[in-house]
């Protein structure tokens, strides 16, 4: 009797699940997955878009062979990895810290939260202008004059106009720009945390740092992994800020993968090759996120 009921519950669950999923599934299939599928397939073809989607010639891995000696793509891969290695942990770490402070520790929560979300909603053109002015290459620039006068650095970096520091500037700007987005997600999930645990910890005399490390972070584990996946994916999709500030330069110093894709697609009209680069990007990111998911599962056991 009991057993039967259990299987009934399962069948019912499965039916409900499919029913709930149906609208999303159909729509995602038609409007999201089909265009993506076509794009990725194009990476294995030679295709002239003038001829429409009918005249497509399969060329196997030819597009991928070309990549091996393509400085633009190879540099982009290295740059993208460099970008992600810094962007992902710094963004998530700072966002978590800010969220914790905004959740409990500060006065004026609502105005401060709103302010931190501002970069994410301000126009990118205005952000680019302001950042380029702040990081003005000469010693008279606002950031550089601090470096010169306060920190006594004789030869301050030229930031966005220097191969050495342009990427640092782009990463800093991206972290600052996207911070509010992650803070909002983490904050929302903090509201769902059980208060009893905190109360008992307070009675045990745990201080704020200890509660944060021992209670908040473990309880937010799923959220943090979600943010980690999001940040990883977003870091490999970075394009707008690079395109508007450095256009990938000086030379290839800040060229990233999406920029290489954009270059081949819309400057050289080689859509097949651009799609092939997208396949590489896809495989790279999918592998990383897959590993992250494995790690998440391992930690939850």
């Amino acid at each position: 009797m009991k057993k039967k009921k259990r299987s009934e519950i399962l069948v019912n669950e499965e039916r409900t699940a499919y029913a709930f999923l149906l609208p999303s599934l159909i729509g995602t299939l038609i409007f999201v997955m089909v265009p993506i599928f076509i794009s990725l397939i194009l990476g294995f073809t030679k295709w002239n878009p003038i001829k429409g989607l009918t005249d497509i010639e399969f060329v196997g891995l030819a597009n991928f062979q070309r990549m091996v000696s393509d400085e633009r793509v190879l540099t982009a891969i290295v740059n993208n990895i460099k970008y992600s290695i810094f962007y992902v942990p710094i963004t998530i770490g700072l966002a978590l810290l800010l969220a914790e402070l905004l959740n409990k520790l500060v006065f004026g929560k609502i105005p401060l939260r709103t302010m931190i979300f501002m970069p994410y909603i301000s126009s990118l053109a205005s952000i680019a202008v302001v950042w380029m002015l702040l990081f003005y290459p000469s010693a008279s620039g606002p950031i550089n004059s601090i470096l010169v006068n306060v920190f006594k650095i004789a030869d301050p970096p030229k930031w966005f106009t220097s191969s050495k520091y342009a990427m640092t500037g782009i990463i800093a700007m991206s972290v600052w720009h996207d911070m509010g987005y992650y803070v909002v997600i983490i904050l929302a999930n903090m509201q769902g945390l059980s208060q009893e645990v905190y109360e008992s910890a307070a009675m045990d005399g745990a201080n704020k740092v200890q509660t944060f490390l021992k209670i908040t972070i473990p309880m937010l584990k799923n959220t943090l992994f979600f943010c980690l996946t999001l940040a990883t994916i977003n870091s490999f999709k970075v394009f707008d800020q690079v395109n508007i500030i450095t256009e990938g330069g000086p030379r290839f110093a800040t060229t990233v993968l999406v920029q290489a894709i954009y270059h081949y697609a819309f400057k050289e009209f080689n859509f097949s090759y651009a799609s092939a680069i997208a396949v590489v990007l896809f495989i790279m990111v999918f592998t990383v996120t897959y590993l992250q998911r494995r790690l998440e599962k391992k930690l939850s056991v």
Partner: protein
Amino acid sequence: MTIPNKIKSNLIRVFATIIVAIFALSCLFPFLWMLSTSFKFEIDVMEFPIRLIPKNWNFTNYSKVLFESNFPTYYWNSIKVAFFSVAGQLIITTLAAYAFGRLRFRGKELLYSLYLATMIIPAQVIILPKYLYFSKLGLTNTHLALILPGLFSVFGVMLMRGAFEQIPFEITEAAYIDGASHFRIFYQLILPLAKPTVMTLLLIAFTWSWNDYINPLIFISKDSLLTITVGLQKFSDEASTSYALIMAGASLALIPIITIFISAQKHFIQSFASSGIKG
């Protein structure tokens, strides 16, 4: 609680507030630049060092944007597109997220990976095939081209799934045994409990739809159908800039987002109080 402890805790809070406020002020800077630029003459925009208070005030930018251009039409279109895509997205993604987060079914892992995979592809890659395909579906030059893909946001599904998963299963099990359907549990128990995340999704989905640039750029040619982001660019001339006019429009465009953000904050706090009781 003793008094010195309270003072100490307040001191920490003051200190933390100062740190956060410094960072928050830096976040406000581009916004202030936008505002100040919108009151300048184009000729004065690119001044270095940056001058936040205009040397010569120009109040005509706003009247030009509001009364001498199609900006109001763009604004209305943005509202329309954002409303439908956010409302639809909230319904569709929360339903799917309930399935992913709280129900057992075959093929869950595979489907979830597939969903995740769609997030990886940057918009710039698929834009041309997407255009050719949408044009076959008859969607180009309609708002549907902007609304439909937004409805099926994979991000929304993943965000909500996380929030739903977090809610203890004991809460719903009792209701289920009492005979409540999954839809009732979803609607009456889970959704209210996940309200802060629903609000977050609303906010982010609205921001994305509102600030979407590449899709309206490619899919909409008719001026009467354009949204703000692309519409504003029409103020620019070749080999020239129009920061003053564009920033006036962009400042006006921020009003709905900020309004939504501030009103969503209230719900954060309300639910904070209620979830404390239930958790």
